[in-house]
């Protein structure tokens, strides 16, 4: 009776093949996220509900001390300051990134320009901060130049204040805004602008009412990619900030490394994560809701599309940047 079964398999195998292998294919990624994202997050959540150990670490008893300690005027003050710095830096980043993305999308030499945007990533983050110190310092290049040109007699204090923090943050996160903006602007059909002009719109009105709504997806991604990391900034305020530049990231670091209060550090982190996560969700949701229906799905690129382009672009940095422009299209 082995004959008939021998005839069956090929078709049986075909039906078996149609089983959903998705979870299996996604297993490496799922495992990765579990180990390096979910587990650490779980530890932070757990620590935030424990009592602090006298010499660092935690003692394993349930406690809400850390969350009670959040209601503290100086913490609130730092939170407000962090929010202001992040909003300013994000706004300025977008202001610079939007024309840059536009220029790159419209240029004939996209690959080269994108390559130049990525080049700074080749240098270590800290080294680039120290480079800014060398440029902006009282004895730095900029002050030397200003003095040599006779514009100022005494050095200008550029460093160690909030503006230095904002400037360096804008510099650091600019590529994260340019790349998603570029990728959406690049997909935009520029003949729409001509159509708008033909219908009587001024140049500015055409950009504002036709281009901007069409690149919303890129804008959302750019905002998320700059605002969230800037909100947690730590090294930049530490190195180029002044005595009034203490940000949430610094408080968290100090609670872990100096004042031995791990639960408080965890509670602050949790609150920040929850708030930024919530804000991002609301932001995404509202952007979608306000999108004019006439735009159609193709003209409102999803943030994840820009994200994919972005990761293409970062791969490009490590080698074949010629494939980068292609990937963006």
């Amino acid at each position: 009776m082995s004959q008939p079964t021998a005839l069956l398999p090929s078709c049986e195998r075909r039906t078996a093949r149609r089983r959903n292998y998705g979870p299996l294919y996604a297993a490496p990624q799922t495992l990765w996220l579990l180990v390096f994202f979910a587990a650490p997050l779980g530890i932070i959540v757990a620590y935030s509900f424990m009592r602090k150990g006298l010499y660092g670490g935690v003692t394993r008893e349930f406690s809400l001390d850390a969350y009670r300690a959040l209601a503290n005027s100086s913490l609130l003050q730092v939170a407000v300051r962090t929010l202001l710095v992040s909003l300013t830096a994000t706004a300025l980043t977008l202001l610079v990134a939007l024309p840059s993305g536009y220029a790159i999308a419209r240029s004939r030499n996209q690959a080269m320009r994108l390559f130049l945007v990525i080049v700074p990533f080749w240098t270590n983050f800290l080294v680039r901060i120290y480079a800014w110190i060398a440029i902006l310092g009282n004895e730095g290049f900029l002050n030397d130049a200003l003095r040599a040109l006779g514009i100022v007699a005494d050095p200008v204090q550029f460093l160690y204040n909030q503006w230095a923090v904002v400037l360096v943050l804008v510099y650091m996160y600019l590529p994260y805004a340019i790349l998603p903006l570029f990728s959406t602007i690049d997909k935009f059909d520029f003949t729409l602008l001509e159509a708008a002009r033909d219908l009587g719109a001024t140049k500015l009105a055409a950009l504002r009412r036709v281009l901007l709504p069409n690149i919303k997806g890129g804008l959302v991604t750019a905002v998320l990619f700059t605002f969230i990391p800037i909100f947690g900034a730590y090294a930049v305020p530490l190195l180029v900030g002044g005595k009034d530049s203490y940000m949430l990231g610094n408080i968290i670091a100090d609670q872990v490394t100096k004042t031995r209060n791990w639960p408080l550090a965890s509670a602050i982190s949790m609150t920040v994560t929850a708030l930024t996560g919530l804000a991002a969700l609301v932001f995404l949701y509202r952007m979608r809701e306000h999108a004019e229906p006439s735009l159609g799905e193709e003209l409102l690129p999803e943030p994840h599309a820009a994200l994919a382009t972005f990761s293409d672009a970062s791969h490009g940095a490590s080698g074949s940047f010629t494939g980068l422009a292609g990937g963006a299209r």
Partner: protein
Amino acid sequence: MKASGCAGRSIVRVAAFALAFGVFALSSCAQKNAGKKLYIYNWTYYTPDSVIEKFEKEYGVEVVYDFFPSNEEMYAKIKAGGSDYDIVFPSGDYVSIMIKEGMLAPIDKAKLKNFGNIDQSVLGRCDFDPGNVYSVPYYMGAAGIAVNKAKVPEFERSWSIFGRKDLAGKMTMLDDMREVLGDALKYKGRSVNATSDADLALAREVVEKEWVPNLLKFDAEAFAKGFASGEFWVVQGYAESVYAELEPARRGDVEFFIPKEGGPMYIDSMVILKGSKNKDLAHAFIDFIHRPEMYAEFVDAFGFPATCNVPARALKKGPAWYTAEALEACELKADLGAALEKYNAIWQEIRVGK
């Protein structure tokens, strides 16, 4: 407590050490130690490579040297059971914590021929480990103030320098609450380990009202770089950090002093962890450090006075940034236990600023 390493510099040093110790130290003598490794956990660049190389050669072992930038980080790592180190270099307050937590092995002084070289007055100050049952002093020092004399020709050797309005925006203090609050306490004639609310309120007022308005920032990472570049004229910090950044030709323009009122002081000690697998070798290393010529080599590398080792004072060749006598007015930082919380609360409000 040694300088919390400069982020930039430590990277270079890690690389340098990786190169130095990537090569096995081969030796013909001391065959019994062949292939053995001694694991040392120390402050970022606190023992010169040359001293470690000599130890490796003489004992025919390999020394693995890891760094920590702060006591807190060192403690957290060892407490988590992360590594099997033989020798660690904690500051006094952490020696007492580690004894309390049962993390240390007793020191067998019979194995330390050079223990007698250690200054009696330093041993007398080891309140964190009376009788040095678990720890051997490595270095006693204090943070002080470095002044750029080209910019600030006249100054008083006192903490009051941070109250000078004419130097506003040109001065930094360490981003370290025990140091800054301790300075203010000493300045007002109190103990650096004060825990009474009145004393702490007084210290807070000095820092907030008199000093902070004139400070550019609190900086424990890059103060020496900023000082060397001429950006900061007066910095509170560690001599060895200032020394490392300054070109030798410019050292004449700089004065480093420990303020006359004194300040918080530290004794960094060598301790052997309970779990050490090479206790004999660890004792040999501790003894090696206190050979007068080795100790002299160590302190000369950092511009230190030979605070702990008496015979090394005669062998020392280089100048020191400050003298052992300058430390007499200083006071050792003790572990404050739960009272640390008061310092935390005050410090956070100072750091938040306006």
